[in-house]
């Protein structure tokens, strides 16, 4: 039974091990997501702690990983907005500055966090020689430019690129099995 199945079977109760597993898996993208609202790392750490504790407290009704993911996003958004409102109250006397968070920007922030997660997972899974080439081509460099910069033949670059593409496709199949329920 994988960790994923543990949640799917509703066996999360009592298993804080699953929380550890989810923390390792999603911390990076959730931090990015929280940072988008809060703009400082001190509160980001706090909000992540609260989110995972709350996930554990609500484990009975969270029966799948997509639900857990959706729960975390929502929790962080709501807490972050509360924190921002508190900041806002103090400011209201000085300048009229109203914080409003639309459903749309919530989804945009999720998209950003998810893409960041996907990319870092995909890139991490590559062998280091492929990784350099992959990063360079992500920065918009042409195969020719990469081969000049790395001082290797264009055929080597092509070969590495096709290895990394094959790997990425495989990784992505695993990644996208998971939906997010919001």
């Amino acid at each position, binding site marked *: 039974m994988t960790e994923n199945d543990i949640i799917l079977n509703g066996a999360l109760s009592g298993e804080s091990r699953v929380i550890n597993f989810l923390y390792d898996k999603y911390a990076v993208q959730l931090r990015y997501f929280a940072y988008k609202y809060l703009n400082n790392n001190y509160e980001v750490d706090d909000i992540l702690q609260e989110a995972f504790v709350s996930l554990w407290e609500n484990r009975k009704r969270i029966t799948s990983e997509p639900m857990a993911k959706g729960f975390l996003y929502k929790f962080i958004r709501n807490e972050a907005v509360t924190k921002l409102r508190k900041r806002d109250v103090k400011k209201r006397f000085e300048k009229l500055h109203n914080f409003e968070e639309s459903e749309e920007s919530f989804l945009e922030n999720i*998209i950003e966090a998810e893409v960041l997660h996907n*990319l870092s997972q995909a890139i991490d899974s590559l062998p280091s020689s492929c990784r350099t080439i992959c990063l360079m081509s992500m920065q918009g460099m042409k195969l020719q430019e990469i081969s000049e910069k790395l001082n290797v033949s264009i055929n080597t670059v092509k070969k590495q690129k096709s290895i990394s593409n094959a790997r990425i496709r495989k990784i992505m199949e695993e*990644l996208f099995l998971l939906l997010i329920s919001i």
Partner: protein
Amino acid sequence: MDKSVNNRIPELITRHILGVSTTDEEAELQNWRSASESNEKTFNKLCSADFVEQGLQHTYRSDEEHQLQKNIVAKKISRIRLYRGIVRYSAAAAVIVIALAVLMFVPGKKGSYPVIEYQSVVLKLPSGESINLKNDETNLLSEKFPASMKKSSSDKPIPEEYSVIVPTGRTHKLVLPDGSRVMLNSNSEITYSIPFSGKERRVAFKGEAWFEISKDASRPFILSTGGLNVEVLGTSFAVRCDRSEIRTTLVTGSVKVTDVSRRFSLVLEPSQQALFNTSDGKLTSQNVNVDEYIAWKDGYWYFDNRTLGYIIEELSRNYGFEYEFAAGELENLPFSFKLKRELSYIQVLETIEKTNRIKIDAYKDKIILLEK
């Protein structure tokens, strides 16, 4: 938007960026992009060359920090478990539980302030040997001075270099062999030669110091410091070298300031300050409130309408604590105060906190400045 298919878009964007998408997927993505202006904006942001790097930079945690955060979560969960467990086993124990719960969840309890240990002031001998100086004053004219040093200076006629290094959190008074007095602020270093003779009295210096130079018209006192020379006849002044600039503040007498290339030169009058920009080599002068630049030598922190960002940076340099502003706008709050430097950094910070404009907390060996 459909409630559970919205990770289709992240998938398509990821595939696009990695260059592994099919024609159909590209078409689907194109569809989404043209659906709204904000979609297109999000797409372009994600496709920019430095998105991953920038994104990971904000969220970077070392493995230890990550582990630490995870442990905090686990600890909090086990506390809740403990609490629930007690409730389950005994209703009668409710009173204890409440007491425990109060103890465990009292909010607003401050993290404990990091304890900082300061190193001692060091005298470096020409032999490379280092001596820890126990007193906060060293008189090079007096007999008490380390024997090893006297010997080496009398045995060899060639001048040998000595350095006094003052670490964070310390200050040190020094009487030079010509009777000139120097007070070194923390993070400073002075290098002089013994015997202290010749046509000029030359001293190399880094950091911040106060100088009272004894008069000797025949032998000018020359202080060389990161690209700038300060030439003195008999006067008192303060020098402070930062990464980007060197400030020379004159209190009495007169000094001549010259950059090493000898392109610029200035003669200062009392209450004037020469400002040397180490990157472009420009030398300018201005009139200043001298007290603010020399208060440290009399044992005071003195800030006259300075921003909190400036003040905390100053305090941190001298006390050696690390800090972080939880809200950027705090850095611009102006403060004026004069406090004794013998106070601990905690006392100084708590005094600032008493103004009720900010809140101070400690977190992971760091001081956190929060909005009140």
